[in-house]
């Protein structure tokens, strides 16, 4: 076993443990922190896959920015305590089981067809250079600003509209 493999299994255990901990925690803050741990571990997986840029973005955006906002909301609302009996809907467990089965089925479909040379296997890199540049800031930037420039620009407008919508729906008119 190579050192990468050992590290991978260690981190995999941490990641799954964190995910389970997130689900089972009775305290919303603990849940959020487990999720942060999970995100951070996933960032390590990206590092193993040779995509340091994605790894750092994962930490900065998910673990660093989004989860801080989660914590904010939990703390400001004082909503730490979960699991009052009323919060679980009767049809929730069966639905969960059903969706889990669907997910496992989808994963199985994928892995059953992911052998080398099949469609699900990623296409090989054209050149050694391309393989080296994969996941680098330059490669990500070029993909983002050439192929996907239109969705990228539209996303910026989308965020603006989301912001305006949120302000419109939450502003307090009595204070104006």
């Amino acid at each position, binding site marked *: 076993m190579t050192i990468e493999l050992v590290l991978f299994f260690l981190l995999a255990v941490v990641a799954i443990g964190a995910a389970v901990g997130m689900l089972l925690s009775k305290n919303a803050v603990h849940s959020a922190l487990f999720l942060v741990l999970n995100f951070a571990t996933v960032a390590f997986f990206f590092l193993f896959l040779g995509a340091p840029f994605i790894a750092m973005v994962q930490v900065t955006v998910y673990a660093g920015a989004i989860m801080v906002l989660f914590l904010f909301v939990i703390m400001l609302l004082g909503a730490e305590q979960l699991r009052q009996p009323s919060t679980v809907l009767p049809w929730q467990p069966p639905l969960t089981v059903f969706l889990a089965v*669907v997910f496992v*089925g*989808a994963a199985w*479909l*994928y892995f*059953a*067809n992911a052998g080398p040379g*099949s*469609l*699900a296997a*990623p*296409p090989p890199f054209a050149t050694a250079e391309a393989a080296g540049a994969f996941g680098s800031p330059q490669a990500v930037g070029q993909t983002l600003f*050439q*192929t*996907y*420039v*239109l*969705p990228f620009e*539209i*996303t910026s*407008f*989308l965020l603006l*509209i*989301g912001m*305006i*919508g*949120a*302000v*419109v*729906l939450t502003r307090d*008119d009595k204070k104006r």
Partner: protein
Amino acid sequence: MTIEPFAPVHLLAVLPEILLVVLAGVLITADLALPAARKRELGLYAAVGFGLVLGVTLLVTLPTVSGGLIFGGMLRHDLIAFAFRVLFLFAGVVTALIAVDSPTIGKEGEFFLVLTAAVLGMNLMAAAADLIMLYVAIEMTSIGLYALAGFLRENDKSAESGLKYFLFGAFTSSLMLYGFSLLYGFTGQTNLYNLAAALTGLPLEASLLALLLVLVGFGFKVSMVPFHFWAPDVYEGAPTPVTAFLSVASKAAGFAVLIRFLLAAFPGIESIWTTLIAVIAALTMTIGNVIALTQKNIKRLLAYSSIAQAGYMLMGLAALSANGVSAILYYLGMYTLTNLVAFGVIVLVGRVTGSDEIADYAGLSRRSPGLALALLVAFLSLGGIPPLAGFFGKFYLFTSVMQSGLVWLAIVGLVNAIISLYYYLIVLKVVYLGTPKDEAAVYPVPRPYQLALWACALGVIFVGAVIGPWVNIAAAAAGGLF
């Protein structure tokens, strides 16, 4: 289909979208700059702006029939996208016009800004040829519409409407996104036109699973059974101009995506999804029409009616032919005109009577013959009475289904059309034969409404009377997809 390398001329293809962003900037600046007394002009700016963009679209961006993939494969600049774009912009003009004099939303710059964004999103939905572009466009539309539905925060029904729409929408769109991610995971492709080839080598279950998940998201947009539950509550609670916009433009956008996606990505399992869509179509129109029979509130009635209309249009997709798709296009065009008339009348009546109960429409013909006539035209067209556009729309749909051998579906459609006549005629009976509660009620029709109602009502008659050119355009646009 090959992706054309970028050329400056491609910018012309997205000129309407660019202009919409400019319009959004103008609106938000005007909202800031205009004094309170002149805020009414905001809606007029929006309407004129949409009108100008519509003009530019018609003059500048007419594509070839089959179009090409541009912007790295993000968009397909074809005739069907063009047709939908015209439809959305027209719906934008009319919605802005009937929102102008609304006491609650008419002076809110944000309302028109978000409306612009929703139209922009729909334009892109109609043209999107890539999973990523499609998702961004759908979210742009949806987020705008969530905000519009819940715009009247002090009004509990509107708040409920916005929240319900958001919760349903977020849930279905996450399932849809899961479907997208499976498609990408299975094939490594994000372009719709590359998916089909990549999916052929994979087991059937892969396509089927992705198809089902994706259908959830699109089904929500077009309010097909079983994803229709949101429609009545949202339609009832949302500000009426928003309901009008939702019922036509949002549904049309859903169909635009549905048609393109199913035809482009899943030709390998055609037989399966056409059967599925046929069954869903039958269920959708039957459930929509039957529940509509018992409605007392006219907005809820039109909500169920619009569910039923979605069912009719799904028939065209089940037919899987250029005729079927062109029938959908024609039907959508006439449905947009008709529903806008109906909602325009509802806005005006609701403002005077303060309610949307059908009982309060009693004797409308005596107090305001013009409005009653407009309602008559709209409802008869929705019911499919011969000289009006609705009749030919249904006729065209049923024929296309028969041509594809789905006779049972055509019969179900026919039965449904008869059921629907019943509740449309009941409303008209109340309007024409009832006695008004308030003999002195005055129904003022401000000028923007006159413009909008006249344009749409004449449109309903004109599109029904002169069928040829519309059918030709629809057929040409549909031909690009086959």
